[in-house]
């Protein structure tokens, strides 16, 4: 019952073929850019570019929305809550007791929501086009210790497993008449013990088994690891990296050299 799925989807697009190192660097640069850009219109341009990449990676809209549905809810929450807690700026549109709604605050809320949208989408593209194996290989190649890479790979691999496990445990306890959302705060936290204990116990049992499985395959027997598949940069990878660096650098030059607001 694949309620939780690995985001990676096999396909043959230039983003899928791209060297994972280039993808990681690109995603980092684009994320950084999303933080440095303060102007809503520039952010929208960035979002449009990211959506173009999404389109090129052949992610269907329905799958993307399904994967990002919590992000979309989070964005709505930002748009709604920001003006309520940010009373600065003029003109003031409405005053409700201590709450002051101002026009700039509304725009700041929208800007932050778009920024979150940019970040989520750009990372979604990375996860959508890069298998976890490639991702870890890239990180290790970029200097991350193999142990950490493996730990990361295992965590990523088991996230959906534990998601499904928790759902199953919730179902198992609901079948015993447990109603998680019912009662006061104390009763509710008590209810969650019935989910938490089996989750932790099952997780520990899984971890134990996994450690044995790793050892039985001689994990750590050699300090210098060899790899079945190595990563090589191709011309297209250098070109892509160049394009992304340019996309990152141009607004930076505009801002810090020519003092143009971005």
């Amino acid at each position, binding site marked *: 019952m694949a309620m939780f799925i690995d985001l990676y989807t096999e396909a043959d697009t230039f983003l899928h073929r791209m060297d994972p190192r280039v993808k990681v660097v690109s995603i980092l640069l684009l994320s950084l850019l999303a933080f440095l850009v303060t102007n809503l219109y520039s952010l929208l341009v960035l979002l449009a570019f990211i959506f173009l990449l999404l389109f090129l990676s052949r992610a269907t809209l329905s799958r993307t929305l399904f994967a990002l549905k919590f992000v979309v809810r989070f964005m709505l929450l930002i748009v709604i809550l920001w003006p309520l807690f940010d009373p600065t700026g003029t003109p003031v549109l409405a005053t409700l007791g201590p709450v002051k709604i101002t026009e700039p605050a509304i725009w700041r809320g929208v800007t932050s929501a778009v920024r979150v949208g940019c970040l989520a989408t750009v990372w979604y593209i990375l996860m959508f086009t890069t298998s976890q194996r490639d991702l870890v290989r890239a990180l290790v190649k970029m200097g991350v210790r193999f142990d950490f890479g493996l730990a990361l790979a295992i965590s990523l691999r088991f996230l959906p497993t534990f998601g499904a496990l928790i759902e199953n445990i919730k179902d198992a306890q609901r079948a015993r008449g*447990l109603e998680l959302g019912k009662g006061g705060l104390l009763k509710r936290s008590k209810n969650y013990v019935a989910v938490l204990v089996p989750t932790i116990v099952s997780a520990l049992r899984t971890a134990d088994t996994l450690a044995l499985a790793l050892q039985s395959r001689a994990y750590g027997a050699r300090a210098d690891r060899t790899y079945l598949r190595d990563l090589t940069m191709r011309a297209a990878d250098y070109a892509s990296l160049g394009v992304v660096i340019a996309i990152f650098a141009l607004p930076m030059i505009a801002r810090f050299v020519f003092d143009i607001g971005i």
Partner: protein
Amino acid sequence: MIPSPIPEESRQKIISVSDLKYVYEGGVQALNGVNLKVSKGEYLAIVGGNGSGKTTLAKSLNGLLKPTSGTVLVAGRSTIGLRVAELARIVGYAFQNPDHQLFCATVEEEVRFGPTNLGYPEEVTAAKVEKAIEAMSLGRLRKEPPLSLRLGERRRVSIASVLAMDPEVIILDEPTTGLDAEEAAELMARLRMFNDDGRTVVLITHDMKLVAEHARRVVVLANGRVSLDSDPRGAFSDLDLIRQSNLEPPAVTLLSHRFAEYGMPQDIISPEEFVLHLLRQRGGI
């Protein structure tokens, strides 16, 4: 050894599923028009290969999953309007992995959890807990922490914790997985007693030997539909259909098919029957 089917019309329907479809979030269609009526007191096995929709169907029967379309009536009421906790009084569900249910400090507390949630008065709860502990012969272990027990014992605790809610129907998902032959036989004997008590047992399993020995009715699921609904004898005589559903008939049934040319009947489902026919043919009886 082989229980004879009780005439269906003489009994009351406890579960009535019509044209049930279920689509998971994300688009996987697990059930595609299931029709199934279960009467009180039946011993039913739902079988099918992996991904055939067994677990989805089972979760629909106690309201954990609500139909995408179609209806599931439990004791005459649609599951759509009922909470899982309300349905738990009628349909108990013991999950495959007992470790997904056990969390209390002692076996007794564990068994008590369900009836307490259902809000029975204390003396009723106590009585139900006692009955369940006895039914799964856990008296000796009642003060033990359930998580430190052996798998067979943990499975019995998890089943007792469902029995303690005193349901009309109990659904068991692969109850014998990981048990040795003796533990499995003991568990199945205890379930038989529960069934003899007039309660309904729904077994979800891959194990055709278990089905042949215990169930009175077999429902085969394939691709989210009921592909066969019959007594075990009828079900296993159609080898092709069973195999198309990614199942393997009991070894003794396969053996009887090998002996077809020597006049062995094709609907043998127990070793006793096989021996009986063999002796009969040789003039031994």
